């Protein structure tokens, strides 16, 4: 099919199309769009977390002194705030992912699709379980 070739031939008689401009604030009107923009913005905080991690590794390699300084730096209210925001986005991403898991994983059992709720529920349950295990390790030490 020569759609593109054809389109090129059409342009000779091509009326001036109107291309509506998308308003800068288009994403405020609708919650799914706002979430979309939030996820896009979250990349900044993901990058921030990479920086924190690199700092941590550097402090670790320089010995106990440097690591103590790193821990003091972490207690700075501004840094705490930034990390809280980062945590928020990590949880936000996790929830987004778990919620789409049902449509991403069209699992079939005996020819029938496993209900969405079961898949999503299993995911959340696994999340909770693993979080508990991790928490237990942290508290114990």
């Amino acid at each position, binding site marked *: 099919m020569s759609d593109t070739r054809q*389109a090129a031939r059409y342009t000779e008689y091509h009326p001036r199309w109107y291309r509506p401009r998308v308003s800068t604030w288009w994403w405020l009107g609708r919650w799914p769009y706002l979430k979309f923009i939030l996820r896009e913005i979250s990349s900044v905080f993901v990058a921030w977390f990479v920086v924190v991690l690199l700092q941590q590794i550097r402090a670790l390699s320089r010995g106990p002194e440097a690591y103590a300084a790193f821990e003091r730096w972490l207690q700075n209210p501004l840094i705490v705030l930034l990390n809280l925001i980062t945590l928020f986005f990590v949880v936000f991403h996790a929830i987004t*992912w778990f919620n789409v898991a049902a449509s991403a994983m069209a699992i079939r059992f005996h020819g029938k699709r496993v209900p969405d709720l079961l898949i999503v529920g299993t995911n959340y349950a696994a999340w909770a379980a693993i979080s508990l295990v991790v928490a237990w390790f942290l508290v114990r030490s």
Partner: protein
Amino acid sequence: MPETISLEVLRYSPERDAEPSFQRYDVPLHKDWVVLDALNYIKDKVDGSLTFRWSCRMGICGSCGMMVNGEPKLTCATFLSNYAKENKPVRVQPLRYFPVIRDLVVEVTDFMTKLQSVKPWLIRGDGKPISEGEYLQTPEQLDRYKQFSMCINCMLCYAACPVYGLDPVFIGPAAIALAQRYNMDSRDEGAHERMDVLAQHEGIWGCTFVGECTKVCPKHVDPAGAIQQYKLTATIERFKSFLMPWAAK
């Protein structure tokens, strides 16, 4: 119920207007009238120059998609009476994110090209002669892709997709769902050929889970689901070819 309802319809004539503008019409309000009926009333009785596409008026030809009060809708399945209580005119605009040719008619070559780009036809290595009968397919196998085969190409999902709006190279919901319709078909062997188009940045990875495409779909195709499923498939394939390069085709 009041006897009339007002419509604000976007008008744009490239030969006359630099910018589009809204024109207001009052039309009779009947219980069984949809937005499309109001447009036809205007065209027949008031202003013959109002321009829009339509054909079947039963939600299967996919021609009459427009923005109604900011939502992508099939105007043949959108009752005027739903808007009667709002006491303000119903806004009818062309489908969002497409160039406007005139009034409510948008340009769809981009969409058609994208449909074609995913190779939406049955690909098979052999070529069983017709005389040997059908390819067997159980109802369960049919059920795996049936939902994705229901797309009427009305493009409402593109008008709902901010990714397509911001970055028009995105292949978009309907085209990916159509690719997945063939990928999931037990008779098809073309999944590998389609992967080149789908598993690129403009393909599935452009999608960031907005999910509005599935919400506006009048045929319950669930393009968002198709995209997420394919993300999983593509990731697994990628790992396979990374870990077992000898197994890759």
